């Protein structure tokens, strides 16, 4: 088993140089490629483009809120900004973030396969992703203005508003389809393409979390598909489904929306949890603590996560019995999440910690996810919920889980895997500084939202009472620090990818299969798949002799 870098003279052309189609070079050799690694990179670039747009919208929202009354934009524009920020961040960044980019690139390698099982379907789902993204862009540019409903498209407003809700609905529908196809591909790949020696419990935990995620993608997404399609039909043809004027029930819409959209937050967070389970053993040189518990807790989250949707609607009108049940299951759901956190911490105990950027982002993940998780329990408690519903407390909770959790997970994944993907190393010192600035700015941005939400600041409001201003100012200044940190982080990664020193085969000392292939990997990944009998996190030899891999 080789763990060092391959000798330079033996390096073969990587997937970056070998095309899978008749175009040897250029754009067409990429956008018509069925290689899972190239598709992963395509997703990475397109996703980052959408992310930057949504960050700008977020920045504008915060800037508008720095003072009461009108600051930079009109109220209507403000509504459109938070709608687009939500749609783009959720459907085009967080949902595809880890599975479509890093799952596509690394899932086949981690299970010892040459590709996913349906490579052409994989490319098709990227096209649907881009196509859906274009509809979102079109909804911004067409006359009438972009949607102003919030990303939840609640009826009856989404049926009545004159803004371009229809393109936004179509965008979300197509993106859902893309997500389903990715999930379907991953489930079948994990069942059918694993190396014959890799039994279920020798799979890396990232693969387990992708497996749980893929099931949610396949089983929950069709519900949002049909629900949004019905809103579109209702808008265009006037069919009575949800509109109360035609006898419909808007609360039924909310139920159907959250039947998908609550499990969807686990589509977003589970892959990040899997990633953290990969990074911690590597940077502490410890075998993961409680492998099976982490693996099964992913499945438990996927299962229980499908049964809690109505906790978003405690104030919308529901029987007391139903509220009690949904609140109870919400509390049950915190158990598998806590199991994961305990296992991560236990893994670090007595480890030899190597504080490189991927590990630092992981620490931020655990800290912020813990805050997001606990505030989630507060919101899941019926009595507290009535006080906090629709305040900025909810916004802060959601961003602590989704951005502080998954977003930081995506940043960790970038720092962890990009040297392998592009064969070049970024500047570790700059990356560490960027981590510090991003984490500080992030917490400064969202922490005040908890406080003012608790004091009664409603979410999504354009204007507010002067007593909330100090919190808003702190939060907005935090957003500036965050953006500076993001620019340094992405700039550093970009420069590293282009001009950085050549990355070794295994810069961090990982034991999973992707660290045993060439950097960057060759087309079809392996000549012969390395031995997988030891399992993914065997660090006994590191504990015995202090081996340096850098």
């Amino acid at each position, binding site marked *: 088993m080789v763990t060092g870098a391959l000798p330079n003279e033996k390096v073969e052309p990587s997937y970056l140089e070998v095309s899978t189609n008749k175009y040897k070079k250029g754009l067409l050799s990429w956008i018509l490629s069925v290689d899972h690694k190239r598709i992963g990179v395509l997703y990475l670039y397109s996703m980052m483009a959408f992310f930057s747009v949504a960050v700008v919208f977020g920045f504008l929202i915060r800037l508008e809120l720095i003072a009461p009354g009108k600051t930079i934009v009109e109220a209507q524009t403000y509504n459109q900004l938070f709608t687009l920020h939500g749609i783009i961040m959720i459907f085009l960044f967080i949902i595809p973030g880890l599975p479509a980019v890093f799952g596509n690139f690394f899932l086949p390698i981690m299970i010892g396969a040459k590709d996913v099982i349906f*490579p052409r379907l994989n490319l098709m789902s990227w096209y649907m992703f881009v196509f859906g993204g274009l509809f979102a862009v079109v909804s911004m540019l067409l006359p009438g203005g972009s949607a102003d409903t919030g990303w939840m498209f609640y009826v009856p407003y989404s049926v009545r508003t004159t803004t371009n809700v229809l393109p936004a609905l179509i965008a979300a529908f197509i993106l859902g389809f893309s997500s389903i196809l990715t999930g*379907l591909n991953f489930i079948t790949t994990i069942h059918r393409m694993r190396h014959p020696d890799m039994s279920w419990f020798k799979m890396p935990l990232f693969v387990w979390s992708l497996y749980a995620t893929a099931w949610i993608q396949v089983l929950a997404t069709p519900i949002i598909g049909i629900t949004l399609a*019905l809103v579109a039909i209702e808008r265009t043809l006037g069919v009575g489904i949800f509109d109360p004027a035609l006898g419909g029930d808007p609360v039924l819409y909310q139920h159907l929306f959250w039947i998908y959209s609550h499990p969807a937050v686990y589509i977003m967070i589970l892959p990040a949890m899997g990633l953290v389970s990969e990074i911690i053993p590597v940077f502490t040189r410890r075998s993961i603590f409680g492998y099976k518990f982490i693996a099964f807790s992913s499945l438990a989250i996927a299962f229980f996560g499908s049964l809690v949707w109505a906790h978003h609607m405690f104030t919308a009108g529901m029987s007391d019995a139903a509220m009690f049940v949904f609140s109870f299951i919400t509390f049950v759901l915190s158990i598998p999440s806590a199991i994961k956190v305990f296992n991560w911490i236990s893994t670090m105990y007595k480890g030899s910690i190597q504080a490189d950027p991927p590990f630092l982002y992981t620490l931020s993940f655990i800290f912020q996810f813990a805050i997001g998780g606990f505030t989630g329990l507060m919101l899941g408690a019926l009595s507290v919920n009535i006080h906090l519903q629709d305040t900025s407390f909810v916004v802060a909770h959601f961003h602590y889980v989704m951005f502080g959790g998954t977003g930081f997970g995506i940043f960790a994944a970038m720092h962890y895997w990009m040297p392998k993907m592009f064969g070049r190393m970024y500047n570790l010192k700059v990356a560490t500084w960027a981590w510090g600035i991003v984490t500080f700015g992030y917490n400064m941005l969202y922490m005040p939202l908890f406080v003012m939400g608790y004091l009664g600041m409603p979410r999504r409001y354009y204007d507010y009472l002067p007593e909330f201003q100090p919190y808003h100012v702190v939060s907005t200044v935090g957003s500036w620090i965050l953006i500076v940190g993001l620019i340094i982080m992405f700039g550093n990664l970009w420069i590293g990818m282009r001009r950085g020193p050549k990355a070794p085969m295994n810069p961090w000392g990982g034991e999973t299969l992707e660290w045993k292939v060439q950097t960057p990997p060759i087309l079809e990944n392996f000549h012969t798949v390395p031995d997988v009998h030891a399992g993914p996190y065997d660090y006994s030899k590191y504990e015995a002799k202090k081996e340096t891999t850098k």
Partner: protein
Amino acid sequence: MSATDHAAVHHVHRDDYGSRMGMWLFLFTELILFGGLFIIYAVYRFVHQQEFHLAAQELNTTIGLINTIALLTSSMTAAMSITAMQKGNVRFSKALIWVTIGFAFVFMVNKYFEWGAKISHGIYPGSKDLLAKPEGEILYFGLYYVMTGLHTLHVIIGVIFFLFILRQIKQGKIASDRYVRLENSALYWHLVDLIWIFLFPLFYLIH
């Protein structure tokens, strides 16, 4: 797993079991897609029992029954075409696929006349006559158009699948030793059939 193949031509991995599994997963998503509509139907039927009862009497059970028979028979011919292909009888298999497509057209022609009759009676989304009816009936006919419409869309997609299959049989891509695409198209067709088996009683039979 062959280990040394790394030419510029991408490795083509054939796994019929895997392909069928992917199709089954896709069928799950289709079931859940319709499942959302069945939930809405259940809720509104519960709330507006009397009006759903009255509205259902407007539908023509005979046409519904003919369509049910057409789809059930077409599912049989689709399954038979797989067996014919397995046994190497390509001509018979193709003939059976054409029969399946024929039944699909019978279904759609019936649907055309059925919808046409409703529309000529002024029962269509947004019409004055429909809006004058009680809310439960508006919801009933809204769901009727959406659910049977979405189902008919699936019939059309199924026909398109079968036309592709016929083309691939001609090209020799589907033969007695590789017919997983035919199997998958037939699976899809059975799903279309199955959903109708639920739509028919819910709209036509329960009074």
